[in-house]
């Protein structure tokens, strides 16, 4: 099994002005293999979201390194990290971050707007992704008019717009009920099996964690169980 992402003793310290400092992640070293679902569990405040930010190149570690395919991407400049995210990483955020005034299609099309794909083409692709997730009948609804589960699927559709190799999902089941969570997990599983997608999921939902192929557990910023 090839390792896609590897962290080497990464730390993330948020300083709120000394002496008030929060070590959100303390020396985490993990390996994420390609084409499987890796779960990150642990209680609230244990550093799961922070670790995902580091892996997803949304922030730089205070100490340590993040490798993707053996390249130390955490050391790269903002511009390169952004380009990498744009081309290869999909995100499902803890809060879904949809723009309520825009329609489902418009929301999903956003990641393509900073590329040379035409808006029309981006929206066509967005409709295709949404239909694939069973939202073909909600394409032109504003997301504010959609149910929680539907919004969740819009968010997933958006994360797939750049056909990512790596999908990072933070608490994907937080706003949906059990049946929908199962649907979601089935969808993820299908994509992993079909496209060799690498998925990293942070959650404290046992249902989600139970589906993962591999599991890390965090406590107080540290990886405690692998």
């Amino acid at each position: 099994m090839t390792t896609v992402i590897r962290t080497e003793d990464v730390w993330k310290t948020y300083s709120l002005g000394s002496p008030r400092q929060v070590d959100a992640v303390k020396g985490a070293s993990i390996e994420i293999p390609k084409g499987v679902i890796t779960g990150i569990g642990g209680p609230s405040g244990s550093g799961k979201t922070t670790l995902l930010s580091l892996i997803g190149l949304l922030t730089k570690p205070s100490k340590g390194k993040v490798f993707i395919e053996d390249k130390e991407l955490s050391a790269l400049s903002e511009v390169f990290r952004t380009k990498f995210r744009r081309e290869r990483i999909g995100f499902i955020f803890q809060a879904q971050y949809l723009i309520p005034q825009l329609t489902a299609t418009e929301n999903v099309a956003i990641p393509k707007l900073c590329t040379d794909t035409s808006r029309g083409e981006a929206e066509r692709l967005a409709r295709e992704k949404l239909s694939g997730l069973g939202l073909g009948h909600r394409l032109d609804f504003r997301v504010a008019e959609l149910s929680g589960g539907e919004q969740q699927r819009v968010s997933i559709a958006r994360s797939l717009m750049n056909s990512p190799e790596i999908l990072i999902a933070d608490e994907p089941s937080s706003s949906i009920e059990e049946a929908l969570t199962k649907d979601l997990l089935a969808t993820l599983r299908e994509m992993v099996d079909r496209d060799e997608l690498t998925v990293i999921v942070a959650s404290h939902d046992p249902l989600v964690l139970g589906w993962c192929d591999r599991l890390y557990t965090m406590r107080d910023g540290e990886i405690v169980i692998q």
Partner: protein
Amino acid sequence: MGVQKHSNLASYALGNVLKYRTRSAALLIGLVFATTLLCSTEFIREGLMVDLTASLDEGPDIVVQKLVGGRQTSIPIDWKENVSSFSGVRLVTPRTWGYTDIGNGKLLTIMGVNATEYGSILDSIGTDIVGIGRFLEESDTRKMVVGQGIVDVMAAAGNPRYVGVGARLSLITYDGELIEFEVVGVFSSDSKIYSYDMVLTDINSAAAVLGYDNSTCTDLAIWAEHGSNVNAVALQIDNGIPQSRVLTRDAIRDIMMKTYGDRAGIVALLWSVILMSVVLLAFTASTAGSDEARREVGLLKALGFDTIDILEIRMFESVSISLLGASLGISLAIIYDFYMGAPGLAGYILGWSLVLLNGGIPLVISIPTIFTVYAVALVPILVATVVPAWRNAITEPDTVLRGV
């Protein structure tokens, strides 16, 4: 390559303008208001400058007044001989002028001159100063050449009267009597405000209306010899006649420009205050400043937008609102000034009650003014939205992973 992306960003930005409708509208209204005010002031100010220059060109090189105790008083006409004797003086002619009523509460300027002397100068300047009819002649008495404003105001009166050559108009004298005049000509001049509300007549008729003794006048108008130094001539007169106040054309220009310039300046100041509030509004309410906007920036960055892309979006937003606002403002100013005669503002800037009708306001639109208005509307809004956007855009987008 890359064009498609810019068009995507522009259309996204335009979507934002529509999405945050209330804020866009508030900004737009503020901008329209500010640019309308600035523009209408500028049109008048520039028109005034052009007009004043024209009237000064038609006027004398030097004006001599008499001061008693620091106040201007009437001049004995026999000063004329004295002034004529200074070297470099080509012509000296007495003028008697002041303000009078035509019975409707509107004041107009009455100017009495020596027809032959004045006429010869005007001919030599080459100004085609009388449009209809003729100029005054030496033997004329109780005859007048009137400005277009008098024609306009009589035509607009309750019972309209067409004032043309041959018409008879009565002026109210200083002691309440009526004196009837016959119109012999109507001015057509580059200088609108100078001649618009003016009645030109012989010096004795003017003296009768204004209550001057026939041996005195208001001031002496002097034209210098061609090629002589006007300042040197003025200095000689000033030194030679201690009671005189000598004003050269440049000095008169300075006084006039200062008077009008200051008034326009106050309006411009007012305008800047308004503009500042627009900027403040833009700051507090802008896409760039709010939490919602900060989250949007974080989201876009997480999804792969570069800092520069985000700035471009914000720029498109501000530019579209500013250009629209400034264009509407300029259009409104044109309507307000040119079609409505700038009610309120014109009277304030011109600063006199002599303005008769809309036609009397000098207006000029110039490319630099329009350009300035666009620039002034654009730059603050651009700064107010792009700077906070830039500050958001350079921060790490990891905050989007959190629900705040």
